[in-house]
């Protein structure tokens, strides 16, 4: 074999392949047909990078599964695009008694499950009792413990929950033990969605395979790990919705693959981009009309264990909260986050951009707090900080290391698997410091403050209050906030709670995630939803001849792409 020649030919071939390659599409491959009115028909394709765990609304507790469940089910209540509560299966918002303990819902008439049976108030009660049955093991039961008689029911002392009463076929009453402003939020969660009793009784362990909701789409096919296919529910109560004939939910698509498919016109909606794709989208003028970036309602920060040294010292915690350069982190993350300085994320009640004592980056203050803490020369020993196992955890861990080194706190990063992280950080006196976050279950400040900072959320195992912060004054404020019916008074209570938390610093509050989404030009009616991930309720497709258009464009693009230098892009 002539090796010199072989090398020559191989390198020439490699050069031809690399240089002769056309540019990737820099804008959408396909445009809309130009309709102004919503059109029925077409197939809408969307994706996620992981797998749907369950289609049973009583069991699913992850946003991927909820995306699918929202297509097939409706609840009594839901949220509009401004996080306002709106009725769905309920005819209107419930009537509430003066003491705030009784809620009466009137159901819409004529709503049917996908198996054809009419929905009644008995289904609502059965569904709630099924979800709250301890043998079912729904992870959502904690949201409904304020219902009268739940404890006795869960202890099997009663057959029914005394706080749920069916008045007639279309009227149901809920009685609480004490007023609770989050009860309606809980009723809008998927756990409270009515399901058909007969299916659950027939397939107790395989409900996901035989799912019948009252929603806009019916499940046609679920190939786990590959795709879910939903067909239009022609008998849907909220006409003219839904618009597409078919919804295809592709599972397990990596971010890179999803972006390539999206730019190739094979996906109609894309989200959660890799850094390079994010920068491309952000800088692309051609995609500008078809993308959105907005703050997710969540909270991220550095959590310090107030129950164990060294962070049982409030001055040391404050020093950390002043020493972290939030704007610097934002730049390091390509501006993919929204810096925050307080525990309540916008736009929730109690968020105040001018909050008193909010946590800002100030090295002089941080050093002063180190002095007050008794460590003017810095901490004598390294502190363990638990982070996630992936690159993102390490990235933020290293930023913490760099920033805290400036005030003499040395951090030793401890990357651990998520399951171990959950288990160990939920026990007292185990983990001094960690990176943590919380995403809303529903848009209310109580969903953040009660869960993350109330002493009630501290246990020997599985504490959600992972900073183990205890403050009776804060507990009292949160307890009042939960029952207060006057919105302004409630706002003031949460404002005060936020001030206490910002100053006591069980967390160094760092950022709220920014979420980026993009959709094809022919996708209409899509608006990012503040509560639900990817809400496709109003989506319609403006591409009646999409297949022909795709084939013609693809041929044209390929032809011009092969011309190389003459190729002028895809639009």
């Amino acid at each position, binding site marked *: 074999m002539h090796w010199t*020649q072989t090398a020559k030919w191989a390198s020439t071939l490699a050069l031809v392949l690399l240089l002769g390659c056309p540019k990737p599409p820099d804008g959408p491959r396909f445009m809309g047909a130009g309709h102004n009115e919503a059109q029925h028909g077409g197939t809408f394709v969307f994706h996620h990078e992981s*797998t749907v765990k369950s289609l049973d609304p009583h069991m699913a507790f992850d946003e991927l599964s909820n995306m699918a469940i929202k297509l097939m089910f409706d609840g009594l209540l839901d949220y509009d695009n401004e996080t306002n509560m709106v009725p769905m299966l309920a005819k209107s918002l419930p009537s509430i008694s003066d003491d705030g303990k009784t809620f009466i819902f009137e159901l819409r008439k004529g709503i049917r499950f996908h198996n054809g049976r009419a929905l009644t108030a008995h289904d609502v009660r059965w569904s709630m009792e099924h979800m709250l049955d301890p043998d079912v093991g729904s992870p959502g039961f904690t949201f409904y413990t304020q219902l009268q008689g739940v404890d006795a029911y869960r202890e099997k002392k009663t057959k029914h929950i005394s706080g749920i009463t069916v008045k007639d076929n279309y009227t149901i009453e809920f009685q609480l033990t004490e007023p609770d402003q989050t009860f309606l939020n809980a009723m809008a969660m998927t756990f409270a969605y009515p399901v058909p009793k007969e299916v659950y009784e027939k397939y107790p362990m395989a409900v996901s395979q035989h799912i019948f909701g009252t929603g806009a789409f019916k499940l046609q096919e679920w*190939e*786990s790990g590959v795709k879910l296919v939903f067909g239009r529910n022609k008998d849907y109560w909220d006409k003219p919705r839904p618009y597409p004939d078919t919804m295809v939910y592709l599972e397990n698509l990596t971010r890179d693959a999803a972006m*390539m498919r999206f730019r190739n016109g094979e996906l109609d909606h894309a989200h959660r981009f890799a850094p390079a794709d994010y920068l491309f989208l952000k800088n692309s003028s051609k995609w500008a009309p078809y993308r959105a970036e907005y703050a997710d309602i969540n909270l991220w920060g550095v959590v310090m264990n107030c129950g164990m040294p060294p962070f049982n010292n409030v001055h040391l915690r404050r020093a950390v909260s002043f020493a972290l350069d939030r704007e610097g982190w934002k730049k390091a993350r390509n501006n993919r986050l929204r810096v925050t300085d307080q525990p309540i994320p916008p736009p929730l009640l109690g968020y105040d951009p001018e909050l008193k004592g909010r946590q800002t980056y100030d090295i002089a203050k941080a050093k002063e707090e180190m002095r007050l803490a008794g460590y003017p020369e810095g901490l004598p020993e390294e502190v363990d900080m638990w982070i996630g196992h992936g690159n993102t955890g390490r990235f933020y861990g290293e930023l913490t290391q760099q920033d805290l080194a400036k005030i003499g706190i040395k951090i030793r990063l401890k990357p651990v698997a998520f399951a171990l992280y*959950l288990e160990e950080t939920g026990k007292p006196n185990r983990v001094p410091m960690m990176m943590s976050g919380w995403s809303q279950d529903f848009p209310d400040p109580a969903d953040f403050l009660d869960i993350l900072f109330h002493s009630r959320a501290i246990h020997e195992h599985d504490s959600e209050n992972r900073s183990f912060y205890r403050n009776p004054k804060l507990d009292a404020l949160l307890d009042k906030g939960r029952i207060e019916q006057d919105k302004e008074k409630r706002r003031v209570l949460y404002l005060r709670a936020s001030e206490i938390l910002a100053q006591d610093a069980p967390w160094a509050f760092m950022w709220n995630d920014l979420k980026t989404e993009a959709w094809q030009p022919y996708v209409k009616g899509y608006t990012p939803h503040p509560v639900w991930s990817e809400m496709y309720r109003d989506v319609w497709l403006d591409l009646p001849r999409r297949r022909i258009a795709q084939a013609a464009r*693809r041929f044209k693009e390929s032809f011009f792409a092969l011309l190389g230098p003459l190729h002028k892009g895809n639009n």
Partner: protein
Amino acid sequence: MLRFILKRVFWALFVVFVVISGVFFAVRGIGDPARARFGPQAQQSVLDAYRKQHGLDRPIVEQYLSYIGGVVQGDFGRARQNDQPVVDVIGARLPRTLLLGAMAMFFELLIGLSVGIIAASFRNSYLDTSLMALSFVGISAPTFLTGLLFLNWWAFRLGWFPVGGYGLGLWSSIYHTILPAFTLAIFGAATYALLIRSELIEKLFSDYVRTARAKGLSPVRVILAHGVRNALLPVVTLMGLQLRTLVSGAIITEAIFAYPGIGRLAWESLNTWDDMMILSVTTISCAAVLIGNTLADIAVAGLDPRVRLGHS
């Protein structure tokens, strides 16, 4: 010949049994199927109920015997993630992997044999050198790299093929399968090309080819009828061995192209630690490789009596 075949089949079944047993104890020993099903935050009562219902609370040997008993009767159990029968899930995926494998095999033979024959016919020319250089590139390039490059060039940049997935309907499915099949075929095609070239060159210098030439036969006929025909024997053996490469390569290829076949199922099962799926996919892959090797052995033994008599 019958004794030879029975011996090979028995040996293949024994290997499958050993593999199932090994994988069963390894998978059950490492992971907890109930925890894998319900996640790290699942309540103990739910986990206990699941373990009881699925016999996971019984001694491991009892579980093993029960599983083997089921397999013998064709019951591979139910998937942990969605409780579907494993046989149904695999039944949906297997035809896709078979299509991918068949198309890859077709590309391998078409490209490999053509390149090898052309190279041998023009041996030591620039054409031969460049084709052999390409073959070396094909053998050396890892599947994940060629897969990503093809995906980038032909699907993403040129838009000739879908970026991934699997179509609905026969033609759409074939269209979606072309690029992954081509990727999967690269290594095999290069291997066939190198093999057929060297075999053919050797045959072209043999006495019977010289005789054929002397008889005045056309060069094409000499190469095809006398050269290629006799050079094909090692190709049959290689085809059996290539099946193993197709099975292992399919895992990577299907992952890259998000192609929902058995390979991707294996990948997903490992990610979700679905022990029932891992066991079944391993069994099927192992069986596929053994069937391929056994068929190749039988074919070679049929063609060459020295093999079945135990001579080298």
